[in-house]
């Protein structure tokens, strides 16, 4: 076990991927000489050279599409899109090509492509650099959507994605990059089918992912002295959702709160809530609650940005209300 930051864990995963498979290459804006906008690929150019660590023009649609084409041509491209906000320029390629080609060709093609991108708010970057569009991607059949929240997962889920024959989108919350934690670099690739219980509890199930996991765990700790034992589920995989893990936990706690940095309307939280209603309605002792971002473009000023995002204090407050009827 080595203590490293989340960005170093991503780099460790990239490094192992590049070392273990000649077909793997990384491309994106400033991944080479600059070292990556979030420094995830710093040093990789020196080790692997410009053919495998490729700086691209600011042409999201072309280089994501080129990733799809290279995958069709037998390579294992890892494409870094600087942030999810810019990925909208490549949404056509991801949704209309990467996700459809296998089915539309009658099963003839596979697109083994990994697209990594930063997501989320919290750094006062305002409304064009702070949004969370994970739900849009999780909406699309043909895609696998991952949101590693821990440093171990940042490395392990990337490596697991390399064995997948179909496109995988990985969301790295920008606030996580400096997070320090122990990482086992000898560990096998992570499971990318299942959610994970990060804290056990019996009174309420808190369901979250990515950048909100830390806040949710903080809230769960603060709830302990208040006599509420919260179970925290880290979804890890946003498509396909591990519905079974959610329902199993609710069959124990009978209450659910979803913490999701996306906007509430049409959110992942909405989808999870619907699945709980379909699968565990009669298990519930209280309505499902959602804590999402306020429905505004994320503002610049710190106090306003904080107010727009899910916070630990809000989670504590909502859970307390929800558990007020607890026996």
């Amino acid at each position: 076990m080595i203590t490293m930051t989340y960005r170093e864990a991503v780099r460790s995963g990239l490094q192992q991927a590049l070392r273990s498979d000649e077909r793997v290459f990384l491309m994106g804006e400033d991944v080479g000489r600059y070292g990556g906008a979030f420094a995830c690929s710093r040093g990789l150019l020196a080790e692997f050279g410009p053919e495998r660590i490729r700086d691209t023009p600011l042409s999201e649609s072309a280089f994501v599409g080129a990733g799809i084409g290279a995958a069709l041509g037998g390579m294992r491209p890892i494409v870094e899109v600087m942030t999810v906000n810019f990925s909208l320029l490549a949404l056509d390629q991801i949704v209309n090509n990467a996700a459809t080609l296998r089915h539309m060709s009658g099963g003839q093609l596979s697109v083994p492509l990994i697209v990594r991108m930063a997501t989320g708010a919290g750094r006062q970057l305002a409304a064009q650099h702070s949004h969370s569009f994970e739900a849009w991607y999780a909406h699309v059949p043909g895609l696998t959507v991952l949101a590693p929240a821990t440093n171990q997962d940042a490395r392990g889920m990337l490596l697991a994605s390399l064995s997948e024959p179909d496109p995988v989108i990985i969301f790295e919350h920008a606030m996580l990059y400096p997070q320090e934690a122990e990482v086992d670099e000898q560990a096998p690739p992570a499971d990318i089918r299942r959610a994970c219980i990060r804290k056990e509890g019996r009174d309420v199930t808190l369901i979250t992912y990515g950048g909100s996991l830390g806040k949710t765990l903080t809230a769960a700790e603060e709830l302990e002295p208040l006599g509420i034992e919260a179970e925290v589920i880290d979804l890890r995989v946003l498509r396909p959702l591990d519905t079974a893990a959610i329902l199993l936990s609710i069959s124990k706690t009978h209450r659910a709160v979803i913490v999701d940095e996306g906007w509430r309307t049409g959110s992942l939280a909405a989808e999870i809530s619907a699945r709980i209603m379909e699968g565990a309605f009669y298990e519930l002792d209280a309505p499902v609650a959602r804590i999402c971002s306020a429905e505004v473009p994320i503002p610049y000023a710190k106090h306003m940005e904080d107010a727009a995002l899910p916070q630990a204090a809000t989670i504590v407050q909502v859970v307390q209300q929800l558990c007020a009827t607890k026996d």
Partner: protein
Amino acid sequence: MADGKIVNLSGLSRDHAWALLRQMLLIRRIEEKSAELYTIGKIHGFLHLYIGEEAVAVGAMQALQPDDEIVSTYREHGHAIARGMSPASVMAEMYGKANGCSRGRGGSMHLFDVGLRFYGGNAIVGGGLPLAVGLGLANKLQGRTRVTACFFGDGAVDEGEFHESLNLATLWKLPVLFLCENNRYAMGTGLERHQSQTDIQAKAQAYSLRGEAVDGMDVLAVEAATTRAVEAIRAGGGPFLLEARTYRFRAHSMYDPELYRDKAEVEQWKKRCPVENFAATLRAAALLTEDDLKELEAGVVAQVAEAVAAAETGPWEPIEDLLKDVHTPAAGSTSRSNTLAEAHQASAVGQLPQRRLAAP
């Protein structure tokens, strides 16, 4: 490029001339039959006919090797057939049958054949260009000498992806042939109304790649120009933009009432019909007789009839297979219970609310 006169027949063998004519005729007759089948409800969805543009696909394909890749558009029946896809496979796909090249999942706009290295059938205008860049990149990285030929129309030139792709392919010196089929209309918007610079090949200069225009109504001219372009690419010179100037004789799709162009303009272009003019040229050069043409025609008509029969008798894919091939099953896995594909399938199936069985 006047009056569709095809003059340069030097070195043209009778066999090759016949092969070109046969392919163009086959495409023409398949398209005519498709239109007929559409009107009687056998083919549905969008149907974009290639009639008038046959010389481009047939000429260009002559320059490509079996392991070169082709990326095409939604007006791709001609490309597919010229590449060697069986008319039956194309027709069955248009019917939506399981013996279609894409098992009926794609239809007219999404013909795929991985064996022929034919990568669609892409119906987002301009969307195929980045794919071709990526296929070219894979070839370069793996040290292969393949060329990726990417067909697109003049409408695609309006898209950002055209410009991004030309820049990227040239920057990385990728072996990609960008082949613009300029039929003068982006759906119903004439070239002069959608491009500030109507000389499309001239745009190559801005990205420092080579560009050339060719008469797209002359199959031999297209073949010669494509051969030169492909040779230059294979020699390591990076990508090439070839603009074939052509015209579609029929409507954009079967829904199009053609309010945007004069009948006189269409009639004028029809005088330059690539099939009729090529046949006439061959006859004038004593490479083809009236009887030969009848024989070719009969062979083509028989092939079209076979294709229709295969489509008519082909099976429908069972509805149980609806979710199949959204994801790739794990290779070599006998127990599929652990695959991500299986997890997707389980998650995709909706769950009806369960009533609690026991009282609390």
